[in-house]
Structures are given as C-alpha cells and as structure tokens.
C-alpha cells in the first residue's frame, strides 16, 4: 500500500444515512481516518454504531453518503470498486465468523488465494506469518471447533490482516468472549495500534478505549453526538455525555474490565 501524506485522510466516510425497516438507523454520520488514527465508537445499544461500521465497508450499503479512499471516491454501485474497497477495509466481527470447514491456516489463506490470486503455497506461507503475528503459529492446523473464543478472534484478526488492509474495522471484538480470554485479544489489538494500524472500533471496554483511542465518537439514536480525544471527553468534570455514559457503564459492570500488560 502506498502510504498517503500524513495529513490526507486515508479513508473518509461522509454524511452516511441508513434506513432499516423504515427507521432511520443512521443519520448524517461522518468519520475521517488518518494514518495511525484509532477511533472508538461508543454509545448505548441501538445507537447505530454497528450499522455505521458495516456501512464503511458496504456490508450494509448506506442509503446516503460517500466513501473516499484517499483521493478517490468509491462508487459502491460498481461491484469491482466495491470488492476493491472491501480489500482495503478489513473487518473483525463480534462473533468471529470463521469459516467452519477450514483449518486456521486455510481460513487465513482462502481470500489470499481467491481474491489476491496467490498460489496455495504462497498463501499458506503468508497465513503462517500472520498466525505467528497473533501468537497462533502452533494452532495452524486446528479447525474453528477446536479453538477457544479468544483464539478464534485472533485467527479472524490474522485473516483480515493478511489482506494488507489500509484500515481495520472492529465490531465489539471482545464482547462474545469469556472474561479470561478478553486480554489476549486486546493485547493483539493494542500491538496493532502501536504499529500504527488505523482502526475504527466499536467497544464497551472503556479502559482499553481510553488507552488506545486517538478519538472517541459518542453515538446516540443514529447521530454522532460527541467527538473528541479521550482526554477531552473523559477529563474529570468534563460534563460530557460520553463521561456520563462511561460512569453508568462502570456502575453497571462494577469494576472496569481486567487490563493486562
């Protein structure tokens, strides 16, 4: 991937609106990503966070709005441009969505072969590199049914990274995991952030969000209500909706989620 100038957004999603079953789920939401940006979407359930995320790689086609990859506007009615966009935008799902019939290595290798046209040997080599990056080189031959939730999510991350995405979307990547497995996935995501992988993440792990986010977007009822750095939004006495929401989240969950490393 050719790295754009530091101040040119690598991806912009502008004025997204989306109707589902006659209701406006998303109303004029925009987000702009520069290299190294880690943006976290938070907000109550039903706010439109996941919808927003899925519109960015057109798994849900936005009813209104534009997507720009660098200087180029993506015409997502054009299937070629659509497939190209999705290669640039990796996605991690809450429930992993691994291919059940393929071993970990082949889960990673499949799209390399089908989309990138790599040979089987090349694809597997790359798959092993990616699995090693998420600490799963010894699990390459295992099938999803033989992996723990945390391992599955790490395979999913390796699968997305193998496509060399320009940006990564993460839709509540740890909320389907048992508490003791959350840490291993967060560690991988933290490493990615440290290496400058641009990410947009929906999460309820507020401590983690505060630690890695360059910006927090607070959504409610389809709108981005607040937007700013964690320091601004979560400063003591900031009186923001974000802070209010986080406080309530802490009260509900008791303690903040376990943080390691």
């Amino acid at each position, binding site marked *: 991937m050719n790295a754009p100038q530091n101040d040119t957004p690598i991806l912009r999603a502008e004025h997204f609106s989306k109707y589902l079953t006659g209701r406006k789920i998303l109303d004029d939401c925009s987000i702009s990503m520069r290299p190294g940006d880690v943006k976290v979407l938070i907000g109550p359930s039903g706010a439109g966070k996941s919808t927003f995320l899925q519109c960015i790689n057109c798994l849900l086609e936005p009813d209104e709005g534009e997507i720009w990859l660098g200087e180029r506007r993506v015409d997502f009615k054009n299937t070629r441009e659509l497939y190209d966009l999705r290669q640039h935008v990796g996605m991690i*799902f809450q429930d992993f969505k691994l291919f059940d019939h393929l071993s970990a290595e082949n889960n990673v290798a499949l799209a390399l072969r089908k989309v990138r046209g790599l040979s089987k040997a090349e694809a597997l080599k790359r798959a092993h590199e990616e699995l090693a990056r998420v600490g799963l080189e010894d699990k390459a031959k295992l099938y999803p049914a033989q992996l723990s939730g945390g391992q599955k999510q790490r395979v999913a991350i390796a699968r997305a990274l193998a496509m060399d995405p320009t940006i990564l979307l993460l839709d509540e990547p740890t909320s389907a995991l048992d508490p003791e497995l959350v840490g291993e996935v967060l560690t991988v995501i933290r490493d990615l952030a440290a290496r400058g992988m641009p990410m947009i993440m929906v999460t309820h792990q507020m401590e983690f969000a505060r630690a890695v986010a360059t910006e927090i977007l607070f959504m409610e009822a389809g709108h981005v209500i607040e937007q700013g750095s964690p320091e601004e939004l979560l400063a003591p006495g900031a009186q923001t909706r974000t802070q209010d929401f986080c406080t309530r989240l802490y009260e509900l969950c008791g303690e903040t989620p376990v943080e390691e490393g």
Partner: protein
Amino acid sequence: MLDFLDINFLTGRVMPYLDRGLVMSLQLIIPAALIGGFIGVVMGVMRVFGTPWMRRGTDAVVAVIRGVPLTVQLMVLYFGLPSVPGLKIYLSPYAAALIGFIVCTASYQSEYVRGALLSIRQGQIRAAQALGMTRWQTILSVVVPQAVRRALPGCGNEIIYLVKYSSLAYIVTCIELTGEAKVLVSRTFRPTEVYLVAACYYLVMVSAATYLLAKLEKKLAIPGFGTQK
C-alpha cells in the same frame, strides 16, 4: 420335483442370469448416482442463490419430478417422446431409464442440498464478503463445501433409494436385475428362489453403498461437522 432351494439350481441357473442383470443395474445406478448427485448440487445452489428465473425454473422442475410417479416418468420418456409431433425422440431402453433416474435423483438431491445450504450461517457469507470475495467465490468455496457435508447423510439415503428404484427400469424393457429375475421366473416357474436371490443381490448392493457412504462421510469429516471427532 426338484428340491426347494437346490444349490445347483441357484448357482448353475439363477446366479448367472442375475449376474447379467446385476451388471446392467450397476450400469444404471453408478452413473445415475454420480451425475444425478452433481446435478443435484448444481440445482440446489441455483434454487438458493440463483437469479429469480433460475429459482423459478429449478423449483418448477423439482415440483414436477417429485409430483409424478417415476414409473409414469419412465413411460413418458420411453413410450411418450417418440409420438410427440415435431420431436420424435427415440430413446434406447437404457438411455430412457438412465435419464429418468438422473433427473429423479437430482431433484431429490437438490432438496437435501437446498436444506443444507440454508443451514450455513449468513455470518460466514458476510465475513467472506468483507474480505473482498465475490458472491460466487463465496458460494463455491465457503457455502457449498460445508453444505455438502451437512447434506451427505440425506444424499446417501437418496442413493440407497436409487439402488432400489432402479428396479423400475424393466418396465421400459431395460432388463436389469429385476427384469432378468422376471424373465427367469417365467421360464422356470420358481419365483421364490429367483426373487430370493434377487433380493439378496439388492441387499448386497445397498450394504456396499452404505459402507462406501460411511467411508466418504468419514473422509470428509471435519471437527465441528458430523459426529466423528
């Protein structure tokens, strides 16, 4: 009067006759199972993922084939087609029987495959899309390999049925196992022994098919699919 279940009669007369029929039966069953199975998968995919016209077309074919007795279908193919004005298709007994079986088994197989395709979780399709895979790449390399494994027990059942309904071929004068048995009975008037041996032959064929299908299931088994670990 000869002894009932006379070994010489069975091995010297019945078995050579029925062996010939058995060969013909296998010549019907094996291609019908393979070609019909393949077409069944294609039809199943068309019925689930095809364009609206593909769906309507294949649904209609299946509705007709499943709605009409196989005997009648075979009669139409063999006795009916030659008298269609402008068409005048003459099929050999073997061709008529084979085509009838292929179409019939494909329709039933497509139903098993369709059910299996629908059981594959939408999530995996989304994941494939998110990786930039096209619709048909997703269907062929994610959905179908899983669906085939899910459909295998049902498809195996259909093959077992096929072994037995292949006995209908004799009504279009394609003389297979049952046909040979009938001919032999009319010559020897010893239906009990002849049909007993024929029944054993079918039992052996079904057992062999069951064994092979179990092996195939085992070979395709993947952790998370089927019962074997």
